[in-house]
């Protein structure tokens, strides 16, 4: 069989950049919606559970509203996710042609979870009118499981790209033998998967909380808003310290498994022990500029001792080094910085709550919560930049370069421009629709909650009798 042909270098480089930008943009868009798809069900069901357990109409109202907002974000996430599965083939045909049979199985599993979540989301939304309290609650639980399972499947496919194993190649580079369990449980899944699931819970929790914090800052200080802020905020704040622990483990594993990525993240030019940790700054050929240096800390973080040897970029062949080290370094630092700030926010709330069973009185607390959603999304993006840009120049670490995988199709830049416009319209409309829903709930109360993409419609009933 003729292998897919390689193309001339210049065209290939322009295509490579366009394809990478397009992939990064669409993935960055989808990952926010995917996080909501993974974590919102648990937040909705927490409110639902509280509502049933304590017979609390406010909590029930929140659960009902959130489930309707979730239906909208899930529907948009489903289409942006479909776009990504097209892009795998459209942008990286040679990657899929060569390795689809090795790691594709993870996506087959994801398909089941996604299908399950879509079905039970529809059942849950229908259930508001057609199922009794606890039966309705339990009809939503499969969404939570499917969300986490789906995140596992997709992220383990990515961790396989970082730590590929479970396949054998023949002399021509074709996959001839596979071990699906080794593919799924590759060395990176154990830290990438929990890191992403916790990130999803943080993004969803802080984002929902920030909506209600803004409402409270605007003077809507009723019980509904307080509860609407505290339920998701508590979930996100519980996830935060665990996330910092998982992230720390992940960084150490990256130092072990992908030293080039780690050297890029930390701007380590010269390998060796007693490595300085640089906080912030710009990576240049002659060292890090404008950073806060902390002596020996980097070595200590990697191996709990200043004597720990850390690989430097000088030990990596130039063609295997990740590009854009400053971007990697600042993204990593910003992610860690945001995570730490969110931890402080949680400690603040926990302390005040412990002292007087209330949220801090100062508006600065609400302001902090109000920006926490955007901050969590930024941290999510920064984390993915570190993972993905840090793996470059490889699409499959050590086996296939991204430049070997890219399509030869013309017009990727045009496609990118078109997608930018399409997604700008999509994002704007989604936000307008969600804001419209919230305004209607506020102005017209429960009677006019409107319809959702999955819910039972109302129109036909009267007219059919006519």
């Amino acid at each position, binding site marked *: *069989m003729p*292998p*897919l*042909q390689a193309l001339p270098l210049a065209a290939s480089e322009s295509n490579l950049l366009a394809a990478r930008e397009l992939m990064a943009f669409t993935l960055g868009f989808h990952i926010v919606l995917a996080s909501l798809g993974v974590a919102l069900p648990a937040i909705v069901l927490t409110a639902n559970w509280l509502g049933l357990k304590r017979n609390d109409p406010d909590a029930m109202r929140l659960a009902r509203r959130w489930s*309707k907002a979730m239906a*909208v974000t899930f*529907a*948009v996430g*489903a*289409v942006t996710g*479909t*776009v990504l*599965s*097209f892009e795998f*083939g*459209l942008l990286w*045909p*040679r990657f*899929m*042609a*060569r*390795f*689809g*049979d090795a790691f*594709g*199985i993870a996506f*087959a599993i994801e*398909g089941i979870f*996604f*299908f*399950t979540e*879509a*079905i039970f*989301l*529809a*059942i849950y939304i229908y259930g508001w009118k057609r199922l009794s309290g606890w039966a309705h609650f339990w009809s939503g639980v*499969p969404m939570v499981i499917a969300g986490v399972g789906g995140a596992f499947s997709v992220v383990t496919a990515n961790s396989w790209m970082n730590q590929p194993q479970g396949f054998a190649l023949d002399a021509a580079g074709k*996959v*001839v033998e*596979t*071990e*699906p369990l080794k593919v799924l449980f590759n060395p990176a899944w154990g830290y990438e998967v929990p890191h992403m699931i916790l990130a999803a819970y943080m993004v969803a929790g802080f984002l929902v909380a920030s909506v209600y914090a803004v409402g409270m800052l605007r003077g809507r200080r009723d019980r509904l808003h307080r509860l609407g802020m505290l339920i998701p905020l508590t979930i996100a704040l519980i996830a935060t310290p665990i996330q910092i622990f998982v992230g720390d483990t992940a960084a150490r594993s990256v130092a072990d498994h992908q030293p080039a990525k780690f050297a890029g993240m930390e701007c380590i030019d010269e390998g060796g022990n007693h490595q300085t940790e640089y906080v912030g700054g710009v990576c240049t050929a002659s060292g890090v500029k404008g950073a806060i240096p902390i002596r020996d800390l980097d070595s200590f973080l990697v191996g709990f001792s200043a004597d720990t040897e850390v690989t430097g970029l000088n030990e990596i062949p130039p063609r295997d080094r990740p590009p854009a080290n400053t971007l990697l370094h600042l993204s990593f630092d910003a992610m860690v910085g945001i995570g730490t700030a969110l931890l402080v926010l949680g400690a603040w709330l926990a302390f005040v709550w412990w002292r007087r069973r209330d949220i801090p009185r100062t508006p600065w607390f609400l302001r902090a919560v109000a920006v926490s959603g955007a901050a969590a999304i930024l941290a999510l993006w920064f984390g993915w930049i570190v993972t993905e840009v840090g793996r470059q120049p490889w699409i499959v670490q050590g086996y296939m370069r991204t430049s070997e995988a890219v*399509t030869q*199709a013309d017009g990727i830049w045009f496609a990118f421009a*078109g997608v930018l416009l*399409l997604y700008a319209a*999509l994002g704007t*409309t*989604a936000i307008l629709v969600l804001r*419209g829903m919230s305004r*209607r709930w506020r102005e017209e109360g429960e009677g006019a909650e409107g319809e*959702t*993409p*999955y819910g039972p*419609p109302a*129109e*036909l*009933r009267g*007219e*059919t009798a006519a």
Partner: protein
Amino acid sequence: MTRADAAAAILWTGATLYAVFGGADFGAGLWDLIAGDAVKGARPRALIEHSLTPVWEANHVWLIFILVVLWTAFPEAFGALMSTLYVPLALAAVGIVLRGSAFAFRKSVQSLRARRAMGAAFALSSVMTPFFMGTVVGAVAAGNVPAGGNGDPFSSWIAPLPLLVGALFVATGAYLAAVFLTSDAHRSRAADLERYFSRRALLAALVAGVLAVAGIFALRADARYVYDGLTGNGLPLVIASALCGLGVLALLLRGARRGLRPLAVGAVVALIWGWGVAQFPYLLPTSLKITQSAAPGPTLDALLVVFGIAVLVVLPALGMLYWLSQRELLSE
């Protein structure tokens, strides 16, 4: 049957489900598009929305299923398709984005103007997506996708057979949708809508029939291998499809409702499997055989296991959803 053939059968099953359920969804979008102004089209549109709402997402998961099975079980065929037919595939993807999001938003916006804009995007993309999907299938049948990929990005699908198959996809979806909507209207006891959609089902059946016959001539000219297969091993299925189609016509003309849906579905299913039988053992006629492109054994085994689990987990859940939505239909 080898494991590779089993995987190909799963792929075809997914394609069948997508063609029937997804196709009917797209067809409903077409009827929505040409239902007339806001006053005249209000009732048909309400029935369409009513029938689609519970299942419109689930029906489209089959597309993801097809993509995933294709790249896992037959990665080279996937690479070849994507590197050749990227233009129609990208346009189909745009249609999917517009369709899914517009349908979602239309349910959640209030003003008439916004609803109308969303509705137009939804309806237009409902036509565009199956058309470009059809050109992809036609290009494969015509043998315009070389095994090594990077076939001609334009002449591979801008040719009589692919364009005809694109039109056939649109017509088939419209036909299925009109039949389903006739049944839904019947069960909702909306006699006017029942007549409305049964007239359209008749029209769509005739158009689809004419396109199918034209397709046979185009196959004879441009896709000799598939043509020989359809008139050889695939002939019983072609005849079955034609008989089902004629049966639907007879029922529609007599105003009968029982058996309408199974026959309409049967016509489409027989045609899809007839195509599969006709191009067997090729995945891409006539450059790539199923066995040549297949993934290593353990991957195929894993895929079969995953498919088994999917049947056990997803089907009961899907059944429950259909039951909940039908229960509502009945309660009206």
